[in-house]
């Protein structure tokens, strides 16, 4: 079964996203801690797109599709425009974050640690980020 959600590029939509994901994950055979982590990871990617790729322009939208295939949960996030390939993103040094020499960056590190696989595709216009979580992984 596929679940779909369209988000307008406005930060207020993130609350809807969390509610949507809570509903989708409710009956999945994963711990509450893993559910929270998965929500955090998907929210992080969507928040990055909304804020950095689309400048919170509520006329833009991104779509999320969640699908369960075998033991995998696949979160496919699509948008159009400036791409953000988180696979190429270098996480900041923690010491720099603490000293405020650099803002943010922890979120992407968390996404990489939480998810089992990340895929990114772009044709220069349409971008697809796929976050894959194996349901029995820690």
């Amino acid at each position, binding site marked *: 079964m596929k679940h779909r959600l369209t988000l307008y590029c406005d*930060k207020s939509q*993130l609350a809807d996203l*969390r509610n949507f994901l809570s509903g989708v994950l409710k009956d999945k055979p994963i711990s*509450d*801690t893993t559910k*929270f*982590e998965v*929500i*955090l990871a998907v*929210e*992080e990617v969507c*928040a990055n797109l909304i804020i950095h790729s689309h400048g919170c322009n509520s006329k833009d939208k991104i779509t999320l599709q969640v699908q369960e295939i075998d033991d995998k949960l696949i979160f496919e996030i699509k948008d159009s425009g400036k791409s953000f390939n988180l696979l190429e993103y270098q996480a900041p040094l*923690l010491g720099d*974050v*603490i*000293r*405020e020499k650099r*803002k*943010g960056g*922890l*979120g992407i*590190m*968390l996404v990489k*640690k*939480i998810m089992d696989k990340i895929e990114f595709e772009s044709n220069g216009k349409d971008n697809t980020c796929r976050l894959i979580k194996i349901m029995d992984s820690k």
Partner: protein
Amino acid sequence: MKVKYTVKKEDDFLIMTISGDLIGDEVGPKLVEVISDAIQENFKKCIIDLSNVRYISSSGIGVLITMLTKMRNVDGEVYLTSPSEHVKKLLIITKLNNIFSVFGSVEEAKENVA
């Protein structure tokens, strides 16, 4: 779950109790302002009780880091107490467990820090 917080001052401790979902964008600036005000009042020890925080986002973690940085800039310190399994795991993944002092309860933090 909407975030709520209470602040109390006991001896030389500022004790902030946060409950609900800690999303940085929603309440972050207000929480940081509380710390800034406390610093103006010469508080240097801040205990943040996370026992009722259900969910924390990366921006929520960012808020905790900002509060810690503000306190450390005046030779103060922030102590976290009673994080949930979810929060604990995030602290470990980000290695922030090495940066923050984490205690099992507010009482334990007060006993160890005083």
